[in-house]
């Protein structure tokens, strides 16, 4: 949190916060406000100098410290927090409603109650102008897999699953230690420690063909870290080869669907892109499917692999 621009909102929230929690520890309060204990003490010192006109001993905000805990003796009329702004109410309420849209959210009822209470408290600050639909498409197989996965997450159990890896076009059996389920860009993922790959992996829910709970606890190693989703789920690796493609207007969706390194506009709505790929066979499959809508300019091994596959396939259509 940026201390200079967020300081006033914090100062206005601090006194009511402390009133609601008499004798709270400085560290805990600092943690809730996302600042250091040192910064919080500075804020408290400042508030001590503020109060009602007159500004005598009985008019100033009075806080008492006992060891590392704080209490409020006089609040100078600042007993409640400021109402939510329109943007705050929007950000929170739209996010809550989005949870209702997520398949398998544990407690839709609790979400609805929270929405109703926040709406009532927020008063006129009604959300507007932002809508979110996760739009998760879930077939019957995936819904069943999700239920098994969620039960294992709640019960902290390991899973055995049959998983389709699209990049290699293969189906494998894996034992995984589930960590959490994510929904990103309309798709559900299981984040888990994969014992076979010995690493944290994101498994697409719609590619889990079969899954069973094991009679052993989920035990991801302590160094298994959650994926940072802020920069998207997929992070191309610098050692992966780069395909240089020219996409026709009908194939431009490729640059919106897959992460591309770079792109350059060409005449007639064509787009030249540079795209990293982990697996040659995956890239060949993509390009065969695009037909004439994508022209590959390099690297040479990709061009020759593609040509060979196309020629062999054509022989089957004679």
């Amino acid at each position: 949190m940026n201390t200079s621009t967020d300081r006033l909102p914090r100062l206005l929230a601090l006194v009511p916060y402390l009133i609601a929690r008499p004798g709270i520890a400085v560290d805990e309060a600092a943690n809730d406000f996302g600042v250091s204990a040192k910064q919080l003490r500075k804020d408290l010192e400042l508030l001590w100098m503020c109060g009602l006109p007159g500004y005598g001993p009985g008019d100033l905000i009075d806080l008492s410290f006992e060891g590392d805990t704080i209490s409020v003796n006089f609040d100078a009329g600042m007993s409640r927090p400021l109402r939510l702004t329109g943007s705050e109410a929007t950000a929170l309420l739209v996010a809550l409603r989005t949870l209702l849209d997520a398949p398998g959210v544990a407690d839709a009822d609790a979400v609805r109650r929270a929405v109703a209470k926040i709406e009532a408290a927020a008063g006129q600050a009604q959300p507007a102008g932002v809508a979110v639909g996760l739009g998760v498409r879930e077939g019957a197989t995936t819904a069943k897999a999700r239920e098994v996965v969620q039960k294992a997450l709640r019960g902290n159990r390991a899973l055995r699953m049959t998983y389709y890896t699209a990049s290699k076009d293969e189906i494998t059996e894996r034992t995984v230690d589930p960590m959490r389920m994510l929904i990103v860009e309309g798709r559900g993922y299981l984040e888990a420690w994969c014992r076979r790959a010995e690493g944290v992996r994101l498994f697409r829910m719609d590619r889990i063909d079969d899954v069973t709970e094991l009679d052993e606890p989920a035990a991801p190693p302590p160094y298994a870290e959650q994926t940072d989703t802020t920069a998207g789920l997929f992070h191309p690796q610098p050692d992966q080869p780069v395909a240089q493609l020219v996409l026709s207007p009908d194939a431009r969706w490729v640059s919106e669907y897959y992460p591309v390194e770079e792109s350059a506009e060409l005449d007639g709505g064509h787009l030249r892109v540079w795209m990293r790929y982990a697996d040659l066979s995956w890239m060949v499959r993509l390009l065969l499917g695009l037909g004439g809508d994508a022209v590959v300019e390099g690297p040479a091994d990709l061009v020759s692999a593609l040509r060979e596959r196309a020629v062999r396939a054509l022989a089957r259509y004679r």
Partner: protein
Amino acid sequence: MSVVRAERLVNLVLCLLSTRQYLPAESIRKIVPGYKDAPNDEAFFRMFERDKTELRELGIPLETGRNWSFDRVDGYRIARRDYELGDIELEPDEAAAVALAVRLWDSPELTGAAHGALLKLRAAGVDVDQGVPAVVEPKVRTTEPAFGPLLAAVQTGQAVSFDYRRPSPAELRGRTLEPWGVVSWRGRWYVVGHDRDRHAPRCFRLSRIVGDVRLVGRPGTVRRPEEVDLLKFVASSSNEPPETSTVQLWLAKHRAAGLRRRATVVGERELDGEQGDLVELEVLHTDSAASWIAGYGQDAVVLEPDVLRKAVHERLLAVAEAT
């Protein structure tokens, strides 16, 4: 913000909350510590204007008015009922939902606003533990540079113009839009509004906006029709009616795993001297099915229908000619 200014602003809020009378600027100057430091009238009014703006930006309802009809200037006060957040108590399961909701956004604009809301709920006495793990965590990300300016335009009710690239048929052209809202559907952001050039409601994908979003006209001029459902508008524009049909393929033995997991094996057959399986597959659109199947090259051959067989054949031909 300097300590002096922060202290002055807190005192100003406390002072205006405690008065029922409208306080004119001159009285505020005499009462609230900090303003006495202003060396002259001009410096004071500049300071006071800046402070008022700051309070309004935080959403503090600063009222202006006169106590008596013969007052010569406006005064200021803050009505407590408009300032204070209403009473709220959340059960533990409701607070857990709030914690999860705050984690939804991966967006500078919306993450900041959600945290602002969380701060106030905590100040209202609600305990929200952000460390509680959830069974499902939805994430919504904003990366498009156009998002911030469009959200701001939606919130201030201002029209915008931008260059928009349509992929097919390819064209880049300027659009002027009265934005009603921003919508995330299946992980993609859209802006919905009244297109002034087309005289009709339209939605635009944010990732296809080229360059800057420019503001047009004054704030407060855009009115969103009450009956419009933003999400439905986008979701129905992007949905095509699915037409499923059953197709028959030959698949080489133990190959094309991606097709096999969706297919049913109905027999065996040799093709070009190679052993394979006859399978049936449900597909939605001929176009997407043709791309999917063509990807498997010589390992997957369409037997029928003919229209799909031709579509796959054409793709393979085009690739062979271009490489």
